[in-house]
């Protein structure tokens, strides 16, 4: 690289902050893209820096998703906003039965954001994308005035291809009484890791976010069983919201057993301290599936043999009774309705 380029790069490193100029469309932005974004995201589809990534044709149906990431704090135990952006997008594709292929990422960065943090986020995105086997093919950066956004926001789009035979996985239209509800592991780790990481509440915990890409484990499952009828990742709103969504308006209901829902002791402790119910807390590396009864065992065995499914459990079943509703058999054998959460759970003392 020649003089002026080095100069600008040096300036960035010296000041170590994203400036409004980095989103101006001028040379500063150009350098930012080339020296950071392309450096970490670069692949055969993104080198051209054209206005569009030109991609090879995909065979099969196309699955497409979009998501925005505004997590606070940006870095948290078990991940960061970049890893989360990749995992979240990959998982939305994977639970639809799709094979994730391409990802785009738009960044809205608050003026003054440390460049070193941006680099950490970009590296983390690349690492996760490589793990998940998805390519980051296009990106965009805007820098906004201090206070106009909270540090950094990422918006993504994801594209994958999906086999025709998985077309009903998203809606769960084939689900029927007798089917089994399976979860791939401990609930509520992401939400509680974020809660504990928010410094204002003064807790210290070793809870780590479960943030991870699920396409590998889902692909494996789909290859060993054809009995899966529904999949969804219980992110915001948690397990309860997914169960309520899928059963709403159906002529069947769902009954889950509180005792079977896996939650780590530490996460449970923090939930109880703040008055949270783990079934409403966000997850970023979990998926819920509804599967034919006869196939449940093989699915469960496959999950338990996989690092992302060690704590997998069959947590409930689809019932002909109480259509459209989710019932929870409580740990002591009582029954109660599981409803969607009205608003965000807040630390409560009463």
């Amino acid at each position, binding site marked *: 690289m020649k003089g002026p380029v080095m100069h600008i790069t040096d300036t960035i490193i010296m000041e170590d902050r994203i400036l409004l100029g980095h989103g101006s469309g001028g040379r500063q932005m150009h350098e930012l893209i080339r020296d950071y974004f392309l450096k970490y995201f670069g692949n055969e589809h993104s080198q051209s820096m054209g206005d569009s990534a030109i991609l090879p044709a995909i065979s099969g149906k196309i699955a497409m998703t979009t998501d925005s990431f505004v997590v606070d704090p940006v870095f948290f135990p078990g991940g960061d906003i970049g890893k989360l952006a990749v995992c979240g997008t990959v998982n939305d594709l994977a639970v639809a039965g799709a094979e994730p292929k391409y990802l785009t990422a738009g960044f809205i960065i608050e003026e003054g954001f440390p460049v070193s943090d941006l680099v950490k986020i970009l590296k983390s995105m690349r690492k996760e994308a490589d793990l998940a086997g998805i390519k980051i093919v296009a990106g965009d950066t805007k820098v906004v005035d201090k206070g106009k956004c909270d540090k950094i926001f990422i918006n993504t789009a994801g594209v994958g291809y999906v086999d025709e035979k998985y077309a009903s996985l998203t809606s769960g239209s084939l689900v029927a009484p007798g089917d089994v509800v399976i979860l791939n592991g401990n609930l509520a780790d992401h939400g509680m890791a974020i809660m*504990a990481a928010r410094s204002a509440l*003064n*807790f*210290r*915990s*070793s*809870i780590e976010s479960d943030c991870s890409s699920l396409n590998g484990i889902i692909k494996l499952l789909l290859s060993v069983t054809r009995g899966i009828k529904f999949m969804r990742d219980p992110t915001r709103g948690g397990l309860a919201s997914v169960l309520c969504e899928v059963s709403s308006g159906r002529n069947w209901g769902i009954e889950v057993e509180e005792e079977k829902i896996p939650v780590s*002791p*530490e*996460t*449970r*402790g*923090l939930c*109880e*301290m703040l*008055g949270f119910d783990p079934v409403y807390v966000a997850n970023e590396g979990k998926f819920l599936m509804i599967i034919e009864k006869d196939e449940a065992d093989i699915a469960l065995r496959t999950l338990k043999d996989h690092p992302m499914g060690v704590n997998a459990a069959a947590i409930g079943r689809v019932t002909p009774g109480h259509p459209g509703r989710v019932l929870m058999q409580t740990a002591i054998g009582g029954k109660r309705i599981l409803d969607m959460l009205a608003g965000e759970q807040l630390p*409560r*003392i*009463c």
Partner: protein
Amino acid sequence: MCLSIPAEVIEVNGDMARVSIGGTIYDASLQLVENIKPGDYILLHTGFAIEKLDREEALSTLELFRELDELERPPDPDQQ
């Protein structure tokens, strides 16, 4: 206003105690209680220990069932 939960005292520093709730660590105030030592369980409410939990009483509450149980009917295999 009742959300108070048991927490285990890890260490005591003056009128503060480091407590653990299933592994989550919190620095709780001991201003409302007396004679707290590591290993004790306290009832934590809004950042304050409001009472030391009495182990003997807890055991005897639980014991009450078992004794009554044994008197009144054969042992329940689930309880083993």
